[in-house]
């Protein structure tokens, strides 16, 4: 009876031990390092909005305002105080809206249902507020 054998094995299994604590602590250190390194990045100059792999627009973070694009029906992108956020979305769970505002290179907002991704790029040379692609 196989299930009983499993149960016997599981009786000897511990909830936690020293070896596994060390492994978990190491994973936490690595993850925290990966988490805080991007925070040191410079504040980016513009946000690139992508639909799938194609760039839809580049928005300068200097000018506040709301933006909508025909590719993303029901989504509103808002620039305020040098950061961009998704303030309105037609998707179900609003993960994109709850991500909040991003402003540093390497940060990203993603909306999987709408196939939208917002990334921050370093300052472009142009003086334009929005570049549509």
């Amino acid at each position: 009876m196989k299930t009983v054998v499993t149960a016997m094995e599981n009786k000897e299994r511990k909830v936690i031990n020293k070896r596994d604590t060390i492994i978990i602590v190491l994973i936490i250190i690595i993850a925290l390092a990966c988490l805080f390194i991007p925070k040191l990045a410079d504040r980016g100059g513009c946000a690139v909005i992508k639909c799938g792999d194609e760039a839809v627009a580049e928005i300068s973070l200097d000018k506040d305002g709301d933006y909508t694009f025909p590719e993303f029906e029901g989504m509103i992108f808002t620039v305020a105080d040098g950061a961009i956020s998704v303030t309105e979305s037609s998707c179900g769970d609003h993960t994109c809206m709850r991500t909040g505002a991003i402003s540093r290179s390497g940060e990203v907002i993603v909306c999987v249902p709408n196939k939208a991704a917002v990334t921050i790029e370093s300052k472009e040379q142009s003086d334009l507020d929005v570049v549509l692609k």
Partner: protein
Amino acid sequence: MIGLKPEKVSAARYVAVMGMLFAATAALNLIESILSAALPAGMRVGLANIVIMAAILSINLPSAALLVILKAAFVFLTRGFSAGVLSLCGGAFAFVVTALLFRKTNSTYILISVLGSIAHTLGQLLAARVILGTGAIFAYAPILAVSSIAAGVCTGIVLKAVFPQIERVLKKKI
């Protein structure tokens, strides 16, 4: 479905226990949707995965795999296509990792649960990468890894407390 059941467990009992476990997965999933509204974007505790790990431990692997598929189907119906695909990919990754660790190693409950949780996140990120068509989503990996660890510690502790009870119900003589 009867082909999945372990010997020495009656068909009726097996169906009843599986129905109960699936109901638990669905209920925990809904509770989690409410809980995750209070958490930063994309984070979930993975309460439903406790049930799947318990099934790996106290029933058998095919039954646990069936629960993973049923859970994804439930998510698909309640939260839509992309959430369903993410659930299936995450669930499949977590299932493979936890099943291997439980069967082949003497790792502790918390470690297995933490690694399962990280595998779940990884599976979801890969699925999201395919749906989105861009790697931008991997910027979420570090923060999700940290939350996966916290979630894994919680689910590991609950799992240890809960799975013997499921085992008891499965084998109890009336």
